[in-house]
């Protein structure tokens, strides 16, 4: 019965979404307030029905209702309850429903939190959001019904891929989707503004919190995914330039550019058309990501051809929304911009450089991801594009960007000189050059790359602190005055400091791990030991345990440094009899921002196990840095100046306008 209610709720949600797409748009056209107000109610109702459907699906997974096909093929009663529930989005149908749930969530959030937005803009934004929801609800109902029944119902289901039975699956996809789909509302704002034919500083100010919100979620989602891969896959990799990762990275890069270009719109009312275009492209890249993951096109264009309904569905949606929005853009965006009222070397100019480099980087990742598909489609040849390509195309773009990241925030608005800006950063610059030189002297000329990377990292971290120093003038002003200036610094500025410093920590982590990672791949019997990174690892015991739905081989290692015991680590190898799959659970022991990492492979010879031991110095910075970036985003979001709807809510301003 529940499944039928769920299905019915989805159909109702589709009807509501269609009405939401049409009625408020007509209302905005005819300036009819009643019709426009329909958007708010529709957005909330749509969320309720999608939420009901999603809740029922989660419930079906929780109680193992194997009469539903999706449940029977992705869950088993033997799985622990938490993983049974997260299995809801561990499959195509369920994850699509989660996608739609979040889409509705953002629509309803605008309806509820955006009361102070101009009525017509809000109605049009919600109408566009309704149109996106309608397209995806139709996709799910017609090609991927999560509530399809299975008759007769089997007594036991096929458990979820063991790799996915992990806390990582519980948290990673929801955050990633909140990020991906969060850009939908920015897209809707952009399209609504194009329909209105008017974009001004207030528009940029209203949209920025939503960009920021989506960006924060996407940052967290990607970081969680990277950490999940690190501990689950068993060889300590944290980024692979895999198409699926690229799919989430492209909207992140474009979203980061958007975050910065919106500042220029707010300040100077130029780059408006560009910002609208970025908003459209960022969400399109989210759709591209959905298409990549959902269609099977990644493995091969031929795999795509074998089950085309869903892939073509997403492709049609992608084409219609991107194409439609770009057409509207071409028709409407011409008169938006004034020519610049600032010089190229200025804060605004710095933000433009940020955009040029980030967008080129996005396009580079796009080329690398899709070029093999294009080659395969066009001719007899097949090519692969892997990390070496990105090292030679993406990384060179990042170096000038990272250099500019610290200069931009100390540039003055409107007009400045590079010499003056570098003068403000002279101590930071001198320190970083000295650090890099010292590293080259200490480590030899072979470590040139390492010195460059760590010098850049220091440039970013201390450059971020310089943002504070330039504003609060410590050692120049009396310190009481410095403290006062520090206190009055807006939350948004602290957010920028955190985000830029976080980027520096990320660069430091990547550089350190690349340069100083140490590994030992050995075959060990109980009692034998191996060495990596100055630590000795002794295999002390291998136990076998039985758990809910797997058997586990638990290898215990005693870790010592210079004969002094440091810690013990237990790495697992799990065998899932039902799917006959094996997963590795690496043992990870944090050591001052670095990790010791051990994973056990299969038996290797009589009574011995294949063991992989790594020392990853400073690796934690790779996730701590982005976490700090996301925290910086949160700080900015808390800034009063960007608080949603503040403009109209402040009585003084309202009076002044009236």
């Amino acid at each position: 019965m529940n499944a039928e209610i769920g299905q019915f709720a989805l159909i109702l949600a589709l009807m509501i979404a269609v009405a939401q797409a049409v009625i408020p748009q007509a209302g905005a056209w005819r300036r009819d307030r009643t019709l426009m107000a329909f958007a708010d109610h529709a957005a909330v109702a749509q969320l309720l029905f999608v939420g009901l459907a999603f809740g029922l699906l989660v419930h079906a997974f929780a109680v193992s209702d194997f009469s539903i096909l999706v449940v029977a093929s992705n869950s088993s009663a033997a799985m622990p309850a938490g993983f049974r529930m997260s299995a809801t989005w561990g499959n195509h149908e369920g994850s699509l429903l989660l996608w739609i749930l979040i889409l509705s969530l953002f629509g309803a959030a605008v309806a509820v939190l955006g009361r102070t937005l101009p009525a017509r803009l809000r109605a049009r934004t919600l109408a566009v959001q309704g149109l996106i929801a309608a397209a995806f609800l139709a996709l799910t109902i017609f090609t991927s019904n999560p509530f399809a029944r299975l008759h007769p119902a089997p007594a036991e289901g096929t458990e979820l891929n063991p790799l996915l039975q992990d806390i990582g699956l519980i948290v990673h996809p929801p955050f990633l989707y909140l990020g991906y789909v969060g850009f939908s509302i920015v897209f809707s704002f952009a399209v609504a503004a194009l329909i209105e034919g008017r974009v001004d500083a207030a528009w940029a100010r209203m949209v920025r919190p939503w960009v920021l919100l989506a960006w924060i979620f996407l940052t967290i989602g990607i970081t969680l995914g990277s950490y999940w891969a690190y501990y689950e896959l068993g060889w300590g990799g944290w980024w692979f330039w895999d198409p699926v990762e690229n799919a989430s990275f492209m909207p992140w890069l474009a979203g980061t550019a958007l975050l910065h270009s919106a500042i220029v719109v707010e300040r100077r009312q130029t780059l408006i058309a560009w910002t609208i275009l970025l908003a459209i492209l960022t969400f399109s890249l989210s759709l591209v990501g959905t298409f990549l993951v959902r269609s099977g096109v990644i493995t091969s264009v031929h795999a795509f051809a074998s089950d085309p309904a869903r892939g073509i569905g997403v492709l049609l949606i992608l084409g219609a929304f991107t194409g439609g929005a770009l057409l509207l853009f071409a028709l409407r965006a011409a008169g938006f911009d004034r020519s610049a009222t600032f010089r190229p070397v200025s804060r605004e100019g710095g933000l433009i450089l940020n955009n040029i480099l980030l967008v080129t980087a996005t396009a580079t990742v796009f080329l690398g991801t899709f070029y093999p598909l294009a080659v395969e489609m066009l001719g007899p040849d097949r090519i692969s594009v892997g990390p070496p390509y990105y090292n030679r195309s993406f990384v060179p773009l990042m170096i000038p960007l990272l250099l500019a990241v610290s200069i931009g925030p100390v540039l003055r608005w409107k007009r400045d000189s590079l010499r003056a800006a570098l003068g403000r950063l002279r101590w930071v610059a001198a320190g970083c050059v000295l650090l890099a030189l010292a590293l080259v002297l200490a480590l030899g000329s072979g470590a040139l790359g390492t010195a460059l990377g760590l010098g850049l990292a220091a440039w970013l971290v201390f450059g971020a602190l310089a943002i504070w120093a330039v504003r609060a003038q410590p050692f120049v002003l009396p310190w009481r005055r410095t403290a006062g200036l520090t206190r009055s610094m807006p939350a948004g500025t602290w957010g920028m400091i955190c985000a830029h410093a976080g980027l520096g920590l990320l660069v430091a982590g990547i550089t350190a791990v690349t340069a100083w990672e140490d590994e030992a791949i050995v075959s060990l019997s109980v009692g034998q030991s191996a060495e990596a990174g100055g630590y000795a690892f002794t295999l002390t015991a291998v136990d076998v345990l039985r758990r809910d739905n797997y058997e586990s081989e638990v290898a215990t290692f005693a870790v010592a440094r210079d004969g002094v015991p440091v810690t013990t680590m237990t790495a697992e190898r799990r065998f899932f009899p039902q799917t006959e799959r094996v997963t590795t659970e690496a043992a990870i022991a944090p050591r001052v921002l670095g990790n010791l990492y051990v994973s056990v492979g299969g038996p290797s010879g009589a009574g011995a196990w294949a063991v992989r031991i790594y020392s990853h110095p400073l690796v934690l910075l790779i996730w701590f840095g982005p976490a700090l970036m996301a925290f910086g985003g949160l700080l900015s979001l808390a800034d009063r100046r960007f608080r949603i709807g503040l403009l109209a809510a402040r009585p003084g301003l309202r009076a002044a306008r009236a």
Partner: protein
Amino acid sequence: MMRALLAFVLLAGLAAAVAPPAGAVQPDEILTDPALEARARAIGKDLRCVVCRNQSIDDSNAGIARDMRIILRERLLAGDSDEEAVAFLVDRYGSFILLDPPVTPATWLLWGGPALLLLAAVFGFSRLWPRRTADVAEPALDAADRARAGALLDGDPRP
């Protein structure tokens, strides 16, 4: 003791029967000469396992990746240079295995694309500053504006 032994036999049997060897490069593949092994690892990172999704043979658990790793090490042991060993594998498996795609007419756009895009973006944004109006005139303030600004600065909210 007996239990541990039984468990070991059980697990070993199962592992041999059904499990892919977990975790990429295996201890028994590693060459005794560390310099040669380091070369093999470096080359392996840039070669794609033919059945995997964009995984290098160095990272892959697949059986064919193991075969490719072993062939690579045999070639290096036989005295091949890095290029010769790679060429040997490309002969067997096709240029598809090169994660570092060679520059050919088919990949010109791939390698040249980023530079072209960068130029296009720089050119596009440079049009924000039309040559003729290089010195942008500040909108001049008339007397009424000045009076209003002065009143605001003096703290009078309603000039």
